């Protein structure tokens, strides 16, 4: 990784003056306004902000699920649409979004089938990514037989099967209880330290953003915009215990201050 270079090549995502206005029946909604953002390769970046601040919209723009109405954006050196066509990213939704009629293994194989990977390789990769999320032995189970946390782990494993360079995650642990969420946060951090993929992570939890990220982007609503980017210097091999340390509390405090500056508490 050539960290010194600042060209588009070195950045996973580069957005300039990004603007997005949704035309609704009563009045246009300014979802994103003047968004400037650079995401370096290998970063774990979190978008944090209250609901309606455009964090999910920004993620969907990166994924080419929404088209910006102004400005420019480059993903992996190309347009979001080309990046999608190259299958450059894996997307994890707020709900597990597993197909109920497919087993865990079948769900993991879905992207591989679509991408035309042969059967033996599909089985191997499904097994491998299931191991990454510690769910070996659950291949033949159907989604409803799994707990919510396990389903979300399958959904993360599904995004990992085709080894994308970029992982886009939209509040993946938002629907889970705090105990399971903590557990998955720690597990996911270990996984990220191992493969060091670029992760763009949407959340509205301050501890989650502070614990996981290398950089935290604080956003504010009406219109959705970036207030502040906060770099984190927490040690890489951190465990959940770090949340008791002064450094962590200081980081959380800075995020909270950023949110307050954006009048997000109004």
């Amino acid at each position, binding site marked *: 990784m050539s960290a010194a270079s600042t060209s588009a090549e070195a950045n996973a995502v580069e957005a300039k003056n990004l603007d997005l206005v949704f035309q609704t029946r009563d009045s246009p909604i300014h979802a994103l306004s003047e968004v400037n953002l650079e995401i370096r390769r290998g970063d774990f970046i979190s978008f944090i902000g209250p609901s309606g601040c455009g964090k999910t919209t920004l993620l969907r723009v990166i994924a080419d*699920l929404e088209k910006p109405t102004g400005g420019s954006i480059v993903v992996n050196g190309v347009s979001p649409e080309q990046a999608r066509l190259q299958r450059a990213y*894996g997307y994890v*939704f707020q*709900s597990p979004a597993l197909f*109920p*009629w497919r087993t865990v293994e079948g769900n993991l194989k879905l992207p591989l089938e*679509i991408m035309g990977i042969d059967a033996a390789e599909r089985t191997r990769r499904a097994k491998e990514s299931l191991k990454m999320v510690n769910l070996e032995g659950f291949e033949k189970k*159907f989604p409803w037989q799994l707990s919510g946390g396990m389903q979300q782990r399958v959904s993360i494993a599904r995004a990992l099967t085709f080894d994308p360079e970029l992982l886009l995650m939209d509040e993946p642990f938002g629907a889970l209880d705090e105990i399971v969420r903590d557990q998955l946060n720690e597990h996911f951090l270990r996984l990220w330290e191992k493969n060091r993929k670029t992760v763009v992570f949407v959340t509205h939890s301050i501890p989650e953003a502070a614990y996981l990220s290398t950089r935290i982007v604080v956003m504010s609503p009406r219109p959705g915009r970036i207030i502040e980017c906060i770099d984190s210097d927490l040690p890489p091999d951190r465990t959940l215990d770090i949340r008791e340390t002064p450094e962590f509390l200081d980081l959380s405090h800075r995020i909270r201050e950023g949110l307050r500056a954006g009048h997000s508490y109004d």
Partner: protein
Amino acid sequence: MIRRLRDSSLIPVSVVVAFIILIWYAGAVYLNSPVLIDRYERQKTEWNFEKLRQDAWAMERPILPAPHQILKDMNKSILQRKVTSKRSLVYHGWVTISSTLVGFGIGALLGIVLAVGIVYIPTLNRSVMPWIIASQTIPILAIAPMIIVGLGSIGLTGLFPKSIISAYLCFFPVTIGMVKGLRSPDPIHMDLMKTYCASDSHTFFKLRWPSSTPFLFASLKVSIAISLVGAIVGELPAGAQAGLGARLLTGSYYGQTIQIWSALICASILAAILVFLMIAIEKIVLKKMGGRLV
């Protein structure tokens, strides 16, 4: 054992059946008595209620035959005759069922194809849907003879024209159900397929089609029953030679009410078998698909 008996539907069902049979016997006496009393008075015979009851349940051409008379006739025409005989209900039932199944196959296929067209082609959605709905407002009894005569004039007779009437009736629920079913996938699942850059055919076969399965079976259960109705209606006009519809028609020509009733009951038994077969297939398929689909 007692618990299983209590939880099963056996007791409620048999109570209802017993009740219906009771009313039926009473109804047979009530409906047949005017003819009988009239006859007694003309022949000046002594009669009391007991004699009236016995005669009402044993008439040759009753207004309403008693259940045991129908059972006796069904026993005779199903079990006692060779199945190839023109007077065997098995033979007539087979004629009807074969055109029912062919019609059901054509109708279900047509229904699915139309639904796919409507879901994928916006122009079809706007142009074809009103015609599909209009097609079902035409009374089938009015259009059936025209189909039979029309197809007969171009040399198509026998099973095929009857199947067309079945198909005409049974494509409709399939189209309506499948349009809804093919549009049922979660937006989140559609987005997921988009992030994979899935082609239209992948989205169809891996997402839309499996999501529509419960809707498909709901429609097929309705369709297969009305397909049987279509086949019977198709046998009524133009002097059909065979089939349950033909039995109904000849029965009414000669006032053979018992024959009409046994053909009717035979038809409803067939419909029940077809629907239960469909339910069984549905259970197997949905079980293979995870067994938790609603």
